[in-house]
């Protein structure tokens, strides 16, 4: 019977090869399979072979699948692949993340709810998806709303939630910097619905281009990546590591 994957390696990485080297090697093979459009090979590499090599679930998500997606973005930027190829590769990564999620061990629930959403107009949902999965695997109860969530719909969803379902923390994602107004609006809507004490996190590429985004939009904190978001969420929600 196959055991569920965890962040603790179930087998030792290949002797003499670091975790980083193992992840890098698998990422290169995964990227090649993505660009070849070989869905099965890509998913097998990124999940089955990565787990067998001793990589943990969070490392696979960030250093194999997530890192390959960043390379895909760079290849499109440099016109080395076209937009159809970029979409194909992203669809494969969505599949790989779903398979990884299925393989991941269900951690004890922490009793804390987090809502994750991309702001209105933001269609780049992959970073938010990585975040939602990481939080879920860490034991949070995650409600992931996906891409391009209209602000009015976000507000209504939160307002209509029974108190026992309301999130303890909200994470808003934006990639394109011209979504700053949408991010401000979404933050205001969350504050209006949930009050001043619920932490609001902002993540995504927008944070790299925007000076002091938290102050600008009225959010509570930003996180550099999914791992950072998990640890910061634990700290702010008072959950023991």
């Amino acid at each position: 019977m196959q055991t569920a994957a965890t962040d603790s390696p179930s087998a030792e990485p290949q002797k003499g090869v670091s975790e980083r080297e193992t992840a890098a090697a698998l990422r290169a093979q995964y990227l090649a399979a993505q660009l070849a459009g070989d869905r099965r090979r890509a998913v097998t590499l990124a999940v089955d072979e990565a787990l067998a090599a001793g990589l943990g679930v969070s490392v696979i998500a960030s250093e194999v699948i997530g890192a390959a997606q960043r390379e895909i973005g760079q290849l499109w930027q440099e016109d080395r692949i076209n937009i159809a190829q970029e979409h194909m590769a992203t669809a494969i990564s969505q599949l790989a993340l779903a398979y990884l999620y299925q393989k991941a061990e269900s951690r004890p629930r922490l009793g804390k709810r987090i809502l994750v959403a991309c702001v209105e107009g933001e269609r780049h949902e992959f970073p938010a998806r990585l975040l939602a999965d990481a939080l879920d695997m860490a034991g949070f109860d995650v409600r992931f709303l996906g891409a391009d969530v209209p602000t009015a719909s976000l507000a209504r969803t939160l307002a209509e939630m029974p108190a026992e379902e309301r999130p303890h923390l909200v994470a808003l994602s934006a990639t394109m910097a011209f979504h700053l107004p949408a991010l401000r609006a979404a933050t205001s809507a969350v504050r209006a619905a949930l009050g001043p004490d619920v932490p609001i996190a902002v993540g995504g590429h927008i944070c790299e281009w925007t000076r002091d985004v938290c102050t600008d939009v009225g959010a509570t904190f930003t996180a550099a990546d999914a791992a950072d978001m998990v640890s910061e969420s634990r700290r702010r929600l008072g959950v023991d590591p």
Partner: protein
Amino acid sequence: MNELAAALRAHASSLAADCTSRSFADPFWDARFGPRGRRYTEEDARHHLDYLATSLESADPSLLAHYARWLRSVLVTRGMCSLHLVRNLETVSDVVTTSVVADAATADQRTAIREALLGAGRALRYESEPAASAEALTTAVLTRATSWTGVPHWSAWTDALGSSTDLAHHWSYLTDAIALQRPTLYSAHIAWLVRAGAERGLPRAWPDAALASLEKLLIEVEAPQATADSVRAVIREAQVRGAS
């Protein structure tokens, strides 16, 4: 500034259309990119305006600079050069500061608009070598432009293909190819020029002589050895691949 940003967004369609019309007055754009290029140019103009509005709202001109650098990396791998984007941002500045949006703005706000857009253009200057040194030679090279424009048939080419034939843009294509370590970016531009010229029955002599004149220019401006070597490597690639 929030009212100004709202006005920019409200008038984005007409402003973007105006920017596109002005850009396409240069025959290069239609020749190189055609109707599809016109649609993308208008789409890009809308993004420029959106980023301008966001930048003004946040009082953060660095936002436009980040955008310009990122956009440059996309455009120069698709047949344009950095100077095209600089000129593009200047066009947006001209259009906006003479539009109904500017009519309702204060003098300080109009200055902020110009500074944000022209500052984004300045942010495109290369800082790493050898591209920075190559780019630094631009002024010296342009003072010797007669060795370029004096090449036979230059005026016939420039009438047909616009800015793609002028020395400033060529130097920008060269610098981009050096900066990205992709000589094929320049040779692809030359190859397109040769094809476009042939389709229009233009005398082939010009692009060949133009590439040769670049070599002379390097000597005339006393380019540092490393810079000259970088430029020559890109020219050689074009002579082998693009001009044959």
